[in-house]
């Protein structure tokens, strides 16, 4: 392979991007925009120490309740902390909780869904009924109950958020397992004497996992809003952690006096981050499996 100059490589990458755009239409650009948003905020979380001009806990960063401008891009809060620095550091908390919660619920949901769909029988029926009931219940209210019982803490809030998405994965994986296990190649595997676990792991699982990628991405978007909702309500996290939802709740107290920057920025960040993951998920869904999100 001959060496390419950076310019050539870039031109090739660009033409590939636009080529994909021609092939998939708007969905490709939605996917890219979503990925860009997620990457920027991810970078913010990873390099927050370098990006933030002040320590987020520094109660002497500037004057009290200064409006955006000058040394403080997004103003300061009532405790003289820099809002922009808190936004930068707060991205860590919300990303960690949402991504981890979605990992936990996807693992549990996928495993239970696979086993339930594959084994069938009374176990499957009872588990499905339980999952359907929990699925129909308002997730946030369940998470509120969990968070209230577990008390504040990063791990606790992650668990409270994780628990409400298990049925989502369970239902998806179970229904897919039910149809895949009737496929001819599964029949063939059984005929040559493959054991139950082997069929489940090597024949069914790889075919199920692809669809869960899209659901995972959309799930993170939702988990972001639930995490912020819990902390906005004052549940879930101890006060010394920097978090967008908690900053929003604090800013709410200064809304009647017109200090708009305390609520505008944290809330906008929650929306943008959720939008990023949603766009990523929608774009992926459209490209990987155009029929998945159509009902």
């Amino acid at each position: 392979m001959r060496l390419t100059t950076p310019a050539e490589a870039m031109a090739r990458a660009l033409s590939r991007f636009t080529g994909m755009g021609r092939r998939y239409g708007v969905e490709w650009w939605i996917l890219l925009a979503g990925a860009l948003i997620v990457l920027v905020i991810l970078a913010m979380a990873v390099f927050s120490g370098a990006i933030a001009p002040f320590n987020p806990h520094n109660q002497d960063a500037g004057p009290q309740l200064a409006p955006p401008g000058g040394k403080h891009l997004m103003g300061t809060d009532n405790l003289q902390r820099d809002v922009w620095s808190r936004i930068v550091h707060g991205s860590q908390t919300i990303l960690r909780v949402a991504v981890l919660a979605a990992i936990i619920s996807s693992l549990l949901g996928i495993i239970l869904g696979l086993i339930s769909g594959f084994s069938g029988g009374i176990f499957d029926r009872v588990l499905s009924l339980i999952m359907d009931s929990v699925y129909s219940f308002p997730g946030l209210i369940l998470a509120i109950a969990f968070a209230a019982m577990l008390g504040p803490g990063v791990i606790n809030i992650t668990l409270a958020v994780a628990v409400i998405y298990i049925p989502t994965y369970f239902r998806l994986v179970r229904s897919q397992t039910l149809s895949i296990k009737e496929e001819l190649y599964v029949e063939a595997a059984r005929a040559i004497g493959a054991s139950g676990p082997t069929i489940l792991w090597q024949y069914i699982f790889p075919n199920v996992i692809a669809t869960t990628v899209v659901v995972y991405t959309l799930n993170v978007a939702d988990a972001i809003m639930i995490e912020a909702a819990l902390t906005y309500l004052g549940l879930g996290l101890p006060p010394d952690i920097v978090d967008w939802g908690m900053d929003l709740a604090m800013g709410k107290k200064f809304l009647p006096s017109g200090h708009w920057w305390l609520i505008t920025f944290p809330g906008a960040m929650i929306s943008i981050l959720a939008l990023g993951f949603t766009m990523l998920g929608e774009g992926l869904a459209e490209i990987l499996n155009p029929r998945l999100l159509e009902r």
Partner: protein
Amino acid sequence: MGNLARYIITRVLLTIPMVFILLSTVFVVLRIMPGDPVGTMLGGHAPESVIEKKKEELGLNRPIPIQYLDYLWQVCRLDLGNSMVFKQRVTKAIAEKLPATIELTTFAMIITILFGVFMGAYAADKRRSLQDNIIRLYGIVIFCIPVYWLGLMFQLIFGIWLDILPIAGRTGPRVFASTFEKTGFYVLDTILIGDFSALRDVLIHLILPSFTLGMVLSGIFVRLTRANMLDVLKADYILAAEARGLEHRKIVYKHALKNAFIPVLTMFGLQFALLMAGAVLTESTFSWPGMGRLLLERIYLRDYPTIQGVIIMFALIVAMVSLIVDIIYAVVDPRIRY
């Protein structure tokens, strides 16, 4: 009709295990999960003997299976116990707050349907146009805006900057509480006694909370209606209507929308859970004295019987609504097979 009756009976019977499972989930979350409600309620430094006594009083020191049966029996008798903090029955506390939540969610639902269904139908009619793309973008973006933040921004814009709408509560200070003794539904109460200045005050207080909640949910309805309308608009009878020379607007908003609306209605059952969750957040933002605020207030006070009661109430409401929606669906659409 025999089929329909059988369907309805089966559906009612299926609700029983669902309610049972929801009640069991609530029990597991609130009683078996780690955490010591009584200890936290009495403060970290309460002596062991005091905690034990309180536990005995509340029946929390008995074996878990006994507690569980007792709990189920309690719910069956519609008795949710007494508040741990106030001298008040939990059912009474809920009865006081429920109308506020129903009023808020009803108005929010009206706004969701007005916004969502008509925008969705309009987008489908004008598909692939600029308007269609704008509405589709609205559908995605609005869904990612947390309902509590939208509420705060509305408060800031309409309540503080423009100063034209109230930002908290169900009424202004000049309306007497005695106005609302009949039903607890303020809109209904003011109409019943014919106090129209109070009605105006109540409606003005409803605008921001119901728009907040209604708009956030409208995104899903935009997408659902648009997708259904696209299918319906391809149907033969639409072509036939066009051929007969019916007015285009009438075809889209009368004939097609009616048929596209039925699947949207079924989705309402699932969206109802989102509506309830959204109501909790909206109530918190707008100091709206409903079930959500009750739940949060009692969580801060660690009043466990009330927390449990409110969550059970939410579970019952969700089960009832999904039952009713399914039955309506079966009755409305004769094409459905059971």
